[in-house]
């Protein structure tokens, strides 16, 4: 009887199981096959899922379009690399500290720009990105415009570069898992309902007892934490961090495209969009057939999705199979 209950529960709430299955596949496939090429592909896919899922907290859940979420990723990279190579910290506390510091910085930024709404907020996030990039470019402690390079010795505490790259990969999968669980948890929480209320009508939410200022500040800061940890991991593995790499607006716009592709506002949509977009771009770049016009193909497909599937893949699936609505969150 208990077994039946558990089966019914799994069918009714498949998300945690789905997340567990995805994370297991990401972790086990490259490890079991030892395929470094697959590991690199999945590393980028996991990073894309982290960025898209956390951006989804702002855009999909709260209705605030944030073009500057790359600053969390970039600043996290700078704090992480600075602590790990400049101050001899282990990667684990350095990445965690990077996440916390950037979350605190986001609270600070949020206090200013979260007073704005709609297009004004979106423009302000671009401005913040440019300002942070300019400040970092002039910070000698972080290498200024030449950035910071990581010597091979820095990988020795993790067993040398070869092993370090595997460790960083598994850490990125862990960050992806936490991102997905966080998105799912917030979506099902009272706090998440408050965010949805803000998304639908901020003034009405205020009347209903939601404190938009506090909710927005918390979600803005929360959405900064995991991208910052991911930034620390990414740039540690990358071997070098420079302002133009760390604060490249393309990261932000690509994450928005991922949300549009998968369907914003859902855990599955953000993750699916990120995975498909990242995998597809990687395929186009290395395909002998498409590599010469990969940007054109990617652009044309995006246009098709925006014009004909505005709700993204998840929206299209729910329209087609309405019974999925309860299962896909």
């Amino acid at each position, binding site marked *: 009887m208990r077994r039946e209950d558990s089966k019914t529960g799994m069918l009714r709430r498949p998300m945690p199981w789905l997340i567990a299955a995805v994370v297991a596949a990401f972790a086990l496939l490259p490890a079991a096959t030892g395929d470094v*090429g697959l590991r690199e592909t999945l590393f*980028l896919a996991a990073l894309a899922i982290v960025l898209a899922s956390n951006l989804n907290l702002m855009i999909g859940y709260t209705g605030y379009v944030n073009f500057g979420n790359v600053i969390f990723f970039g600043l996290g990279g700078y704090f992480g690399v600075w602590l790990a190579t400049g101050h001899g910290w282990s990667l684990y506390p350095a990445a965690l500290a990077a996440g916390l510091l950037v979350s605190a910085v986001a609270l600070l930024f949020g206090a200013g720009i979260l007073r704005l709404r709609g297009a004004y907020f979106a423009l302000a996030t671009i401005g913040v990105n440019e300002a942070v990039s300019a400040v970092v470019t002039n910070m000698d402690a972080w290498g200024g415009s030449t950035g910071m390079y990581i010597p*091979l010795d820095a990988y020795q505490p993790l067993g040398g570069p070869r092993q370090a*790259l595997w460790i960083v990969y598994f850490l990125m999968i862990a960050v992806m898992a936490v991102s997905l669980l966080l998105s799912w948890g917030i979506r099902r929480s009272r706090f998440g309902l408050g965010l949805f209320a803000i998304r639908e009508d901020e003034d009405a939410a205020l009347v209903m007892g939601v404190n938009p200022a506090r909710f927005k500040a918390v979600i803005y800061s929360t959405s900064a934490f995991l991208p910052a940890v991911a930034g620390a991991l990414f740039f540690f593995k*990358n*071997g070098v961090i420079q302002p133009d790499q760390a604060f490249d607006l393309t990261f932000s716009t690509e994450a928005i495209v991922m949300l549009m592709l998968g369907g914003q506002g859902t855990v599955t949509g953000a993750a699916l969009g990120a995975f498909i977009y990242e995998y597809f771009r990687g395929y186009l*770049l290395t395909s002998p057939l498409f590599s010469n016009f990969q940007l054109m193909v990617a652009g044309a497909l995006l246009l098709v999705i925006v014009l004909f599937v505005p709700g993204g893949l998840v929206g299209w699936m729910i329209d087609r199979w309405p019974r999925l609505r309860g299962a896909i969150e």
Partner: protein
Amino acid sequence: MKMLRFIAGAAALAVVCVQFSAKAAAADKTLTIGFTASETGALNVDSMNQLHGFELWRDQVNAAGGIKAGGQHYKVKLVYYDDQSKAARVQQLYSRLIVQDGADFLFSPYSSGLTATAAIISEQYGKVMLTTGAAEDKTYTLGNKGLFQIYTPATHYLSAAMRLIKEKDPKARIAIAYSDDGFSKAVATAASAEAKALGETVAFDEAYAPNTTDFGPIINKIIAAKGDVVVGGGHYADGATLARQIFDQKVPLRFISLLVAPDSDKFATLGAAAEGVTVPSQWEPSAAYKPDFGPTGAAFAAAYKAKFGSDAPYHAAGGYAAGLLLQHAIETAGSTDSAKVTAALNATDATIFFGHLKFATDAGHHGLQVGHDMVLAQWQKKGGSLVKEVIWPKDAQTSPVLYPIR
């Protein structure tokens, strides 16, 4: 007798078959060289020129029968992907090149940042990677063992200009104005230190935003600091604009040396504003080095023009030089084994059409280029039109220095 003839015939046939199969086996040998090129993105122009250099080298080597090592002939196959001028995919693509495409040797991506990223992968597999367009010195202080730099390091880009100023005008007040990007900053910082070491006066030293279009404030500061010479710049757009606005404001400068921009033939379209402006260049077609092996500069320039229909920029020459040097190291080692080729590259001390090449072999700077000198070229008026002449080093000089320029 019949039996004897049969045995002789069979033996002859066997010899022919063995020779044929040996030839076929030799013809089948291929050496794969992998790299990423910036086919799209901000680094596109320079990276594509570099790719043209690789391609010309490959075509010439294969036409001549391939690389000869250990009694084998290896045809060169280039495998490359677009890195989009971004670091994000570089490690993924270099892993693919090594693991999936079976690259025997590697060329670096264009730019120091992308090269440092690729080196994390190449070092793990013990691969030799020749770097072009990765001029920053930092890349060679990270503990890599398989990187070999073809270009003169960024810290020496303006050395020739500084030495020339010291010789021609030791009391000149130097103004250093440069684009605030990684490469330009590395060059300018080293130039400032070198000027001070030579006993010269640095009257002004300031960066400007890479996308600057109005240099009025910078020029006013240079005038206020009583600068006699200007060195710096960054890339084409800012360098060309700076040169034009200096001319428009009639700043009485005795010497100008800017990075990258004046190297382009387009720079001549500035007319009188271009006259006298100098550019540190990794290579110029007119630079007359006597090569120990490979083509002369003139032969390379002619082959390049025949294939691509334009004059060879130094990025293309750098690409060709990387291939040529790799070929020479493999042939000297008599093997395609990475360790033996690394040893041959470590021992390299030779002059080719690109100039003298020698690598640092100490652990702290392994692979850093220590043999190559920059060429300093100057736009001069000859027969009513502007031409670029080599004015430094003196053994490669094609025309005397024009100093002061105004």
